[in-house]
């Protein structure tokens, strides 16, 4: 998802009898749905895994602003521009809530920024695709934010208090994002033939990358068991992907658009859709830095950091001067 490949400890999940008293007390609390707070004792692996997961999630929110910011200046009306601006501003806020949550675990904001700029940190593969037309703003809100919601709603109930609370704030705002996207799609499909074609083209390009957002198939997700036991992951990748397909296909039908998957078919027995094979080679290539826009995204983040330096320094100097007065 926004954290697609979180390396966990790689160790086998222990059962309660095998644990030292501290860890047993910790796991017992998680099993009883009691939140873990930043100052509570926690296993090192829990801390490290969560730092990775939350910082990947935060980086995704921040980098995720870039594809959409491409269209702020070119939005078709002043109202659409204001709406898109508000949506992108929300994503900046999501990044900040999440950076704060990660900081409670002992990593600093600057360390996380450095990791991102150095190309060492992961963020969601979805944000490495280009936004070629206005219809992409519709497809992103509808599909990308839609997929994000699917993953973030259960995270509101995860075991780590600061992460769960950040997710509560985020989920309150996401529905606006998805609905504004769907609204753009509705407008386009109700328009001219060229506008409807634009909507279909956007769906064609975003559908498969959206399915990849849920991460690799369960059979190759090696790190899930421990994250399930710690209640920092509640649903398997394939489970959420299926849910997303089942929810989205009828919405596409309502729009009169066609999902770009020849193998998509309703399966009466399982009561859900069968869908075609996802190109996992593409996913791993994009995640490891070789997607269409990886370099451009990091350059944009680096430029923002560099261009903001004089302002940050000015504020710091001013604060220091006033503190001395």
């Amino acid at each position, binding site marked *: 998802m926004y954290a697609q490949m979180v390396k966990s400890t790689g160790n086998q999940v222990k059962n309660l009898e095998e644990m030292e008293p501290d860890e047993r007390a910790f796991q017992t609390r998680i099993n009883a749905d009691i939140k873990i707070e930043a100052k509570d004792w926690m296993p090192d692996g829990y801390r490290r895994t969560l730092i990775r997961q939350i910082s990947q999630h935060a980086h995704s929110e921040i980098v995720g602003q870039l594809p959409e910011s491409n269209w702020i200046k070119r939005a078709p009306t002043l109202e659409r521009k204001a709406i898109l601006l508000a949506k992108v501003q929300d994503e900046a*806020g999501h990044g900040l*809530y999440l950076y*704060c949550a990660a900081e409670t675990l002992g990593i600093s904001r*600057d360390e996380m920024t*450095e990791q991102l*700029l150095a190309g060492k940190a992961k963020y969601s593969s979805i944000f490495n695709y280009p936004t070629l037309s206005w219809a992409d703003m519709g497809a992103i809100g509808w599909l990308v934010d839609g997929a994000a919601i699917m993953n973030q709603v259960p995270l509101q109930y995860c075991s780590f208090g600061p992460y769960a609370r950040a997710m509560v704030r985020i989920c309150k705002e996401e529905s606006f994002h998805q609905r504004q996207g769907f609204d753009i799609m509705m407008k386009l499909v109700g328009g001219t033939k060229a506008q409807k074609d634009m909507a279909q083209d956007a769906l064609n390009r975003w559908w498969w990358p959206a399915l990849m957002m849920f991460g690799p198939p369960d059979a190759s997700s090696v790190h899930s068991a421990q994250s399930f036991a710690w209640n920092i992951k509640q649903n398997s990748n394939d489970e959420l992907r299926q849910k997303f397909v089942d929810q989205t296909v009828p919405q596409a039908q309502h729009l009169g658009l066609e999902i770009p998957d020849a193998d998509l078919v309703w399966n009466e027995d399982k009561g859900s859709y069968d869908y075609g094979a996802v190109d996992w080679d593409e996913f791993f290539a994009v995640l490891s830095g070789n997607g269409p826009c990886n*370099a451009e995204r990091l350059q944009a983040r680096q430029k923002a950091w560099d261009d903001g330096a004089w302002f940050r320094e000015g504020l*710091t100097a001013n604060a220091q001067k006033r503190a001395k007065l």
Partner: protein
Amino acid sequence: MSSTAKKANIVKKASTVKKAGTVKKEWPLWEVFVRGQHGLAHRHVGSLHAPDSKMAMNNARDVYTRRGEGLSIWVVPSHTITASAPSDKGPLFEPANSKVYRHPGFFNIPDEIGHM
């Protein structure tokens, strides 16, 4: 430029970040409290980094009240907050456990008395 060359270029550039001194000592952390429309107490909503109280207030407005969540904001330097330690949970909170009579439900009042 090939994409690998491009990538190498970025990585090189990024590694100079620290040396160039653009990553400075971090701005202090502030805790943000917001009082909503309905006259309840200020409630903790999150935290942020800012160089001083004025910027902390500006940022708190942008980050935590984009949807009319509040009528008043407090920003407090995080380091000035004294928090109870998790290990104090016993001595602090256990004494209350044995005093169930503090809850009104402890007392049985006959139905015919009505609401009390």
